[in-house]
């Protein structure tokens, strides 16, 4: 799959967030909000799931946004316009149920902002009232701010260092909002701890909350069970049963541990490659 356009959305000393527009006509035609593709950068790469951030069926393109975190994402980040990725498969996973819920809060943390964008877009189209909260460590890492501002009825920002918006966490803003008035749905994507904290707060007030989970996968078609998560006491495969789940039912502790299963190898391969 050829990279038609590459944009660096954010850059700090520690990390980079990169946007790719890919030539993928068949996927572009089918992509729906909430779905993902599985990507291999090279023939030797891991298969990693990435959210379909946008798609243009007419142009035959899809948009993916990657934050450089581990080896595979750093390797992807080195790809340039005109290069081809070894494989891109999808769309996978269930799409978000798009209907008029009423008043919705979408929470995006870090690169999770990219993942709430397509959902926000689709939910807005059917007339929902959207409050979007985005947060990042620092101002430079706040992505898609302009696009989300255009979409949202209200956009709130939090940064850890206070360089933009409120100094603090997205959950601080969430707390204030849900204390003031009733919301019909909360949709959150971001670091695991953030999603867990969102879930804790909305559970107390009994607000339906969905999260899109970022889980290790191999085939991403239900064949291996690498992406097992416990939801409401049942084992689910995030790839085919998700990636969206009821945040109040997810076993966050188990998920956090499972996502660290290859920490050692990750450090090793990054060190080897000076990444």
């Amino acid at each position, binding site marked *: 799959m050829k990279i038609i356009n590459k944009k660096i959305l954010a850059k700090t000393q520690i990390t980079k967030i990169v946007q790719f527009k890919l030539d993928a006509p068949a996927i572009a035609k089918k992509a729906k909000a909430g779905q993902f593709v599985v990507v291999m950068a090279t023939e030797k790469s891991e298969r990693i799931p990435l959210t379909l951030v946008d798609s243009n069926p007419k142009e035959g393109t899809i948009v993916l946004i990657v934050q450089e975190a581990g080896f595979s994402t750093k390797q992807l980040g080195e790809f340039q316009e005109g290069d081809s990725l070894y494989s*891109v498969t999808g*769309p996978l996973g269930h799409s978000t149920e798009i209907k008029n819920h009423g008043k919705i809060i979408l929470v995006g943390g870090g690169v999770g902002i990219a993942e709430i964008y397509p959902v926000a877009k689709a939910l807005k189209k059917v007339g929902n009232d959207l409050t979007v909260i985005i947060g990042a460590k620092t101002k430079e890492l706040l992505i898609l701010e302009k696009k989300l501002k255009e979409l949202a009825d209200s956009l709130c920002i939090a940064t850890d260092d206070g360089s933009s918006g409120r100094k603090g966490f997205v959950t601080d803003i969430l707390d204030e909002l849900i204390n003031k008035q009733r919301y019909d749905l909360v949709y959150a994507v971001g670091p695991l701890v953030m999603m867990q904290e969102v879930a804790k707060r909305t559970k107390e007030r009994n607000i339906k909350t969905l999260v899109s989970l970022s889980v290790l996968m191999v085939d991403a078609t239900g064949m291996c069970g690498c992406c097992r998560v416990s939801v409401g006491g049942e*084992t689910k495969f995030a790839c085919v049963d998700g990636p969206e789940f009821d945040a109040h039912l997810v076993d966050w502790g188990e998920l956090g*541990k499972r996502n660290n299963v290859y920490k050692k190898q990750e450090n090793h*391969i990054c060190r080897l490659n000076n990444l």
Partner: protein
Amino acid sequence: MKKEAVKVNELKAQERSSSFSEVVLGYFEKQALQEAQRCLQCKNPTCSQGCPVGIDIKKFIAQITQKNYEDAYNTIKEKNNFPSICGRVCPAEYQCRKACILSKKDSPFASDQAINIHFLERFVGDFAIKNELEPSLAKDRRLSKFKVAIVGSGPAGLCVAGELARSGVKVTVYEALHKTGGVLRYGIPPFRLPRNILDFEIDYLKKLGVEFVLNFIVGRTKSLEELFKEGYSAVFLGLGAGVPSFLGLDGENLCNVYSANEFLTRINLMKAYKFPQYHTPINAGKSIVVIGGGNTAIDAARAALRLQKIQAIPENTTIIYRRTETEMPARRLEIEHARQEGVNFKFLVQPVGFKGNEQGFIEKIECLECKLGKPDSSGRRRPIPQEGSNFFMESETAIIAVGLKANTLLTGVTPELKVDKYSDLVVDPKTMQTSIEGVYAGGDIVGGEGTVIEAFGTAKKAAASIKRGLI
């Protein structure tokens, strides 16, 4: 005096365990001739009835004895497109060899005296590869204007592709993964089926004009309906049985508890044993326990043992099975190979839970001892767990190999496709046509998990009805 069966050449056990090279090396010509000459050439042979695709075994063995290897090849090819693959992966001791007149009749599997039909088949298949023999084409002009889509490039899909392409049909095979071969690539390790053999068979199909489209999930990337709109006259579904069963026990989601499918896919498809040269990781652990008694369990255990060796961990891999060795559905040869290589077996043991540490990694498996009771519906004696016999086994990695189910990726979004309670496709057994006209199916997605040659059997039947339907 009856002649002894000719032993097949094998890599020495010590040489095997640190590589994924093929273990069984096959017969040299002289050995093949000697083994073929042992065949009694029965007037009414029973062996072919034991073959799911009904290869004329008596005939091809006779052709070997006359050194007419090309004829032998064509005899096999009449019924089976992939002799080099089947000669390696067929559970012959439950099939043709068990039906051989020389096999003792009181055993659940063939005895040593039975003719090594599979090794002879392999010899012929490999001869054809070495000499680049090509089976005769049976092009039918009436078929050349049609195109057929095949979903899945596993055994069933490859078989139908070959059957149709040889008749002149334009064939496109859609594969969800980034490599062709399905279970032959992600499931069966290279030490049982070397990849050059698989690649040769697939390249041959490409030469026949078969087009392979990778990274394409029918039902997701395109719907069945859209395929028909693109001008395909028929579609064959070789979806396989790709979804692993778990046990539903406490602690099953601890880190390093793998399904055999995941463990083998990481190794076979993603080459995790070559990490960090390849980027997919895998955890071997000091003690590996594989749960199950089928070929997948054996494959996983033998791969696990190799992984330990490659990672310089003292080899410690154990298969636990609820019944005894006699009831194991695995191929006898694989059990023997696993044992030679150093895999431990613990029979009459049933896991009841997985225990882990604070970081969420598995440390041990709690088990119960079993006794064998009366035979169950499968005809095998039922294991009865003994109350109070609980004990723990150390296990830094656990691999669950207790069966596979249908993948519902396509059927879930295609309600017109009728499925049974196992989510397998319902077909007309005579034609292999599904509930949608022009859509056929074969392999494991029909009737559940089976062998490669059984998949070839149903695929072949489907290919014949597809051709009939086209004309």
